[in-house]
């Protein structure tokens, strides 16, 4: 730090968490050394918060109503997103996996917080918590139960630990009672948690009756 001899604003800020102070210090150093510009950081945050699970939900709803599209989504989710005019994001490859009567998928990143941000937006805080990241692999059925998902004993559970360059998106099962819904209405049933694999979409009560 011997070269760090100029004045700048304090990089800690009252009671902000240690991680936030560390990020601010890193950002200040990267900017100071010309690795990134402040504008890059702002644009990155703008992009991230402009993403939302509504995009992933459009993919799922189309797959529910169009079997040929479903096959294309499972074969190449990036191409399928582009086909719907969605932004699949930068380099990481997105792989869509399908829940069926016999197989249920759920996604975790035990090492950090890898997540299909381009199609789902920022991950929820619990997804980044140590508790979820450790228990999702060692006691996944217990975790699912806490989210209100109880799998039948004969359903095979597959936990996907996204450890590298691939991002996983779960295509949940289309709920019973949703036969009469339009594609746009179906998309409203597809939640963020369902595409992580910790929830199952439900049809609205009015439709069930």
């Amino acid at each position, binding site marked *: 730090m011997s070269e760090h001899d100029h004045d700048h604003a304090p990089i800690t800020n009252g009671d902000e968490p240690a991680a936030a102070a560390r990020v601010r210090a890193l950002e200040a150093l990267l900017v100071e050394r010309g690795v990134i510009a402040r504008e890059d950081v702002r644009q990155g945050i703008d992009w991230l918060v402009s993403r939302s699970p509504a995009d992933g939900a459009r993919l799922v709803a189309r797959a529910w109503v169009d079997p040929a599209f479903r096959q294309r989504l499972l074969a190449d989710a990036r191409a399928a997103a582009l086909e719907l005019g969605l932004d699949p994001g930068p380099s990481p490859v997105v792989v869509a996996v399908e829940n069926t009567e016999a197989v249920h998928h759920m996604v975790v990143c035990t090492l950090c917080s890898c997540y299909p941000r381009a199609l789902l937006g920022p991950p929820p805080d619990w997804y980044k918590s140590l508790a979820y990241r450790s228990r999702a692999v060692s006691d996944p059925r217990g975790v699912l139960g806490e989210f209100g998902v109880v799998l039948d004993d004969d359903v*095979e559970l597959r*936990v*996907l630990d996204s450890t590298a*360059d691939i991002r996983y998106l779960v295509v949940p099962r289309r709920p019973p009672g949703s036969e009469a819904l339009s594609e746009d209405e179906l998309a409203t049933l597809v939640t963020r948690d369902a595409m992580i694999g910790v929830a199952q979409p439900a049809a609205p009560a009015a439709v069930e009756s």
Partner: protein
Amino acid sequence: MTYRPGQRVRVAARAHEGHHRTPGYLKGRTGTVERVHAAFRNPETRAYGAEGLPEQRLYLVGFAQRDLWPDYRGHADDRIYADVFEHWLEEAE
């Protein structure tokens, strides 16, 4: 591509100083290649400012939950799938 879908592979049990993307709970464990992904730049050198070359082939490997956790409750076929780079895999009998 060295490994093929269906092939049994073991994750190297070695320690690694510094950034790497092989989770500790899988080191030394044996699983089955589920998918062969593309090759990607190596995060172990890329994390420190290098280009991460040569690229390393990435594999989706499935592990039986009951092989990982002795007291695992649940379906006998429950599995964990993780992406493991080729240089962390060894052929298993």
